[in-house]
């Protein structure tokens, strides 16, 4: 049994934490939060590229470090802990992973080295409005290699160079790679719950679109991409949830009320114990997700465990981060509700991360559908 980070992976994680505590303190996050003109922290993005993190899981032949997915999970956990204001998830968990899983050799050669070098930011453009997008409601279209339609919201769509777009072609949904710096693309920046991450409306009017993966399988491909991303996002959520518990604990140990430290009151202790329990459930599910994700990259046909493992990781991590972020505000009392205290950075990010790749409710439905299939078989 070897169900934990290895010593090397722990070392990488410790180094990542040290690096981020220097390069991504709360002041850096707030720099993006407080300036509506800034979508991300460019200096941090460049430094992260310099560290090789963007290409951590990209093979060496494409300019990456060729590490496994568990190493990427370790980095993700630290990025989540630091609420890093960079388009790491859109670029690495979504675009790089999608191209590695579904791209042609030419697409891999064109995109992966640029991601690894920090020259290309990605995004995933699926949503067209509130609620769940069904195949019959999909209105974006590709005809003769030209894309028309409106995608809203697109996380990091304001700064991305390349988008993965879900659109129908000949009446069938497909995925397409679109160069957002080319003609026929209009971007509009949008306000959001988490201003430390950019969000945009993308309007396509004859933009050049190149198919990614098989024709007609757009929704299945999106799900496959999200299965991978969900595991990595779960580690970001876990890192954030752990930090919320720490912050709440530190505050409770220093705050006095009714003549004694509030960390001694059972109402507070039990709240923090509840956070701990949820975080450990999230950690164990995330580890299994990491194992399944890594296994899926090593086998020709992926790992059959991944859909269930990814769903469980995402559900547990979403619940843990939501609970820890909201109850951390509560433990901080009135101070927790101020702009100055960092609680809201995590509260905001917990919402952003839970919404960005399908809400937990959708993942619960996906999980139960998988269980139904498995138990019937």
């Amino acid at each position: 049994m070897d169900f934990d980070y290895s010593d090397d992976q722990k070392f990488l994680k410790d180094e990542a934490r040290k690096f981020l505590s220097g390069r991504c303190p709360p002041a850096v996050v707030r720099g993006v939060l407080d300036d509506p003109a800034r979508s991300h922290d460019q200096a941090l993005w460049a430094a992260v590229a310099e560290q090789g993190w963007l290409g951590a899981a990209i093979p060496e032949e494409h300019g990456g470090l060729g590490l496994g997915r568990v190493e990427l999970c370790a980095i993700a956990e630290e990025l989540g802990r630091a609420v890093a204001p960079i388009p790491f998830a859109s670029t690495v968990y979504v675009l790089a992973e999608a191209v590695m899983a579904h791209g042609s050799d030419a697409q891999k050669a064109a995109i992966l080295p640029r991601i690894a070098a920090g020259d290309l930011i990605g995004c995933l453009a699926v949503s067209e409005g509130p609620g769940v997008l069904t195949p019959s409601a999909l209105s974006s279209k590709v005809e003769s290699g030209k894309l028309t339609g409106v995608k809203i919201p697109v996380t990091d769509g304001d700064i991305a160079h390349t988008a993965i777009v879900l659109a129908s072609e000949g009446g069938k949904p497909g995925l397409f790679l679109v160069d957002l710096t080319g003609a026929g693309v209009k971007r509009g920046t949008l306000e959001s719950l988490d201003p430390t991450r950019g969000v945009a409306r993308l309007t396509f009017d004859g933009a050049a679109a190149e198919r990614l993966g098989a024709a007609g399988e757009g929704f299945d491909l999106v799900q496959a991409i999200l299965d991978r991303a969900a595991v990595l996002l779960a580690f970001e959520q876990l890192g954030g949830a752990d930090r919320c518990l720490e912050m709440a604990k530190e505050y409770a140990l220093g705050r006095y009320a009714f003549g004694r430290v509030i960390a001694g009151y059972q109402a507070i202790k039990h709240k923090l114990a509840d956070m701990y329990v949820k975080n450990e459930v999230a950690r164990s599910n995330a580890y299994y997700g990491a194992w399944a994700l890594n296994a899926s990259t090593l086998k020709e046909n992926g790992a059959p465990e991944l859909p269930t493992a990814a769903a469980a990781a995402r559900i547990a991590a979403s619940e843990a981060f939501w609970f820890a972020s909201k109850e951390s505000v509560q433990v901080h009392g009135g101070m927790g509700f101020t702009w100055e205290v960092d609680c809201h950075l995590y509260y905001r990010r917990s919402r952003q991360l839970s919404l960005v790749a399908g809400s937990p409710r959708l993942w619960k439905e996906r999980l139960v559908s998988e269980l139904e299939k498995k138990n019937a078989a």
Partner: protein
Amino acid sequence: MDFNDSPAEAAYRDKARAWLEEAAAAHKAQHGEPKPNTPEHMAAAKAWQARKAAAGYACITWPAVVGGGGGTPIESVIFGQEEGKAGVAYGYFTIGLGMCVPTVMAFSDTDTKKRFVSPAVKGEEIWCQLFSEPAGGSDVAALRTRAVRDGDEWVINGQKVWTTGAHYSDFGILLTRTDPDVPKHKGLTMFWIDMRDAAVECRPIHQMSGGRDFNEVYFSDLRVKDSQRLGEVGQGWQVALVTLMNERLAVGGSAGPNYREVLELARALPGEDGPALNNDAFREKLADWFVASQGLKFTRFRTMTALSRGQTPGPESSIGKIISANQLQDLANTAVEMQGEYGVLTGPEAAAGAAFQQSLMWAPGLRIAGGTDEILKNIIAERVLGLPGDVRVDKDVAFKDMPTGR
């Protein structure tokens, strides 16, 4: 990350599995598969324990000189898993070998150890732990059972409660109050006692679930020799902490139906619109149960990983019972509610053999036994997160002056 055994672990598992296959077949041929709580079941359990001890598979982590297996914690976990799969696991020895006998080994003289350890390992004698009292549940140190010195003997009067296995145990370790004039933790002393003594009376407790799985134990002028004392006079609390530290690593799953059984029930049950499994609220709960069950399973894997690496497991295993007990209650109640009025039935007509109704009635006990939800949360808060203990109003008060309720 992977779930595979290391080569050494795999070799051990193969060896254990091969032995179990043969031994379990021989055991079942001789004893059949008797019903629990029968003399035949107890006889089978004792025979199986003896068989294990002879082969070095009883008390695997104990030294061979005392009858153990001289193995490692991970080997013990592996054997436990395989033993469970072979369908020959019996629970009668868990408390004795997990908690009582280690305490005897830590606090008694050579002769006493010689007398008791080997028979316990071989399953010839069974031990129980006599700590909880009507006045001392979560607050065990508030116990009132009195031991008064009389020459070379002690005279014991009082009552214990919730003693698992008292009625079939041969011996027990008993925590008593020897000095009511000092604060509660300082006036306690531990003894081992003979459960067959006429001054010891076991009375079964009628539980809310209808069963009688636990006992009250009464002591009426029970006389024990001073040589039966474990540890110094007044050091009983420290001895008890050693007992509780020896609590075995909980690696087993929780009893009762899980998400699979409730999924099957919902598939077969008519709902508002097709099978009850189609109900969105139910599906959401089902996902939550699955995620929590997986969380516990993989948390146990993390504990095993630490053992496998020769490290001390982290505190993460402390989350187990809080989750499993509450989940069992919620799952059972949902399954019962899903049946509508039919859910009240507990007889032969009941769905799924009334398993969910039984769990519904058993779950409240599970949330209390072995540390209530609230005490477990205190333990996580204080020992894992390092938060301060509660304000103790009884710390410097002599036990006899402590206020008592009913």
